[in-house]
């Protein structure tokens, strides 16, 4: 048997049907809003199974899919900036954030003055 290619860990995520906000599937099968409480799936077959289960719950959520994630200190963390924005909310309106910027969130885009202060120029 050939060795399986390495599998990037996954989470199951979707948007809540009624509200539209981002939800994640937890290990106990609940839809949770906090990424760190999502189930980090490290096995491909299990990931497909969990996705199928999520797809059977289309009266609860819209568009479930598997997203790449990594193991963080307190639960899964995003690896791509799109998932980071989904986890934390729009960056232009701090008042509409739902969580502090997740790991993998790109840095704020700096003005000239901020860049000078940071020594980035």
């Amino acid at each position, binding site marked *: 048997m050939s060795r399986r290619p390495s599998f990037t860990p996954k989470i199951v995520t979707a*948007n809540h*049907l*009624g*509200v*539209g*906000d*981002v939800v994640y599937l937890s290990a106990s099968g609940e839809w949770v809003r906090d990424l760190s409480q999502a189930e980090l799936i490290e096995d491909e077959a299990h990931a497909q199974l969990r996705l199928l289960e999520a797809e059977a719950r*289309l*009266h609860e959520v*819209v*568009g479930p899919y598997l997203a790449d994630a990594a193991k963080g200190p307190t639960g899964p963390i995003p*690896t*791509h*900036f*799109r998932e980071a*924005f*989904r986890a934390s*909310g*729009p*960056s*232009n*309106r701090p008042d*509409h954030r*739902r969580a502090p910027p997740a790991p993998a969130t*790109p*840095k*704020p*885009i*700096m*003005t*000239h*003055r901020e*860049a000078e202060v940071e020594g*980035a*120029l």
Partner: protein
Amino acid sequence: MYQYNDFDRAFLAERTAQFRAQVARRLDGSLTEEEFRPLRLMNGVYLQLHAYMFRVAIPYGTLRSEQMRGLAYVAEKWDRGYGHFTTRQNIQFNWPKLVDIPDMMDHLETVGIHAIQTSGNTIRNVTADHFAGAAADEIADPRPIAELLRQWSTDHGEFQFLPRKFKIGITGSPNDRAVTRSHDIGLRMVERDGEPGFEVMVGGGLGRTPLIGKTIRDFLPKADLLPYIEAILAAYNAAGRRDNKFKARLKITVLENGLEAFRDAVEAEFPARRAAFSGADQQVLAAIEAQFAPPEFRGGDAAAYEAARAADPVFRAWADTNLTAHRRADHAIVTVSLKAHGATPGDCSATQMRALADLADAHGYGELRISHEQNVVIPHVPRDALPALHAVLKEHGLATANIGLASDIIACPGMDYCTLATARSIPVAQAIALTLEEREAEVGPLKIKISGCINACGHHHVGHIGILGLDRAGVENYQITLGGDHTERAAIGERTGPGFPADRIVPAVERLIDAYLELREGADEPFIDTYRRLGMAPFKAALYDQGNVSDAA
């Protein structure tokens, strides 16, 4: 201005009742998302990254004060107290709950606004010159025609399932403020031997294949407009590609078949269409035109305006950038900037909406407009009322004096909201505006336009400086284009070269500005003219030479 009649109201009430039932059936699980999605899209309801989004059309960008209050009410009651005005003269609410959207629709219907055909493969909101009916350079107000098109296209049985979305833009002025050549059909009012008519352009569009519209008829008599447009739609409906979403827009149909062949198909269709209309549309148009009669202008005392200008430098700076010539010398067109430095372009709070509605009532005959550049326009203001109006704008953070300057940026929602985005867009606009704030008056007229993916909702192709955010191997990367033009000299910008990472895009734009200031022949040569005179080379050097190469990725 156009008022809904009983038929319009009954139609909308029924449509909302239908949608309410569809939402209920989706929520209880009897409709799948697959079944529901096209239904919600037909009613302007999207699902974005963090929430549903409800897109409401502001037909030809025209609003009465009570309609603006209606938007404010909806924003406060069912959303988070603000709305986002877009380049297509729509307003988007970013946070509605699905179950509330039918109530939002019902409320908007009471002030004569709806969301039908703000999505889907239909004829979308007809956009128009935001100075229509007020501009000094106008041949005639294009909005009655736009309203005729709206009535004709809304729920038009033949055109509900086009190969792809379909956008029409119209201007009544030789100076094109409606980017008509970026639309599937662009209409520019012209006169020939005293007879009113239109130059008709087809096949414009931005997105992944940006194309400037081509003239299919240089003079179409006004009375032939609807049948001719119907002929264009019919020819497109038959020939447009349904096999490939990316080749389905009219621009590709025209490109692949050639303008001549497409024109032949339209002309072949035209006689039968014209015969079928038998003049009924002209009667409707006459009734609509009566509703667009200009307000009863009162005289405005220019002396009071001049005195305020002389006395108050802040007022003067604002007047110099934010006023445009009205067709009456004693009035002015006021553009209210929704681009305070560091703010999200196009966002407007409910409080600001109400303040604008009150100002329109107090000084502007109750009329408002939304521009494709994501600003609000008060189209008719007597000059002597301008100081008082300016004072109220200041109280509401609406007096930014930057119209047409570097910080008057169009930016699409980008990665902060949009599911299709490949990079952030709004934060780039915010950082550029803050960075250039102090010297933008010196820099002068400049259009910076930013999109968060190749769909080009932020019009980057027609920006003097266009910025396109992409995802390169999981990292944001920003491509720059130069030399785009959104006016009657419409042009698609040219790529400078490799893109820049997020922390290098603002300094890159600054280098372009530095280069321009050095190269221009004087303060009266705007950026775009310097670029046209000298071409890409010196700007490219400013971006990539001087040890800056490492900036690009």
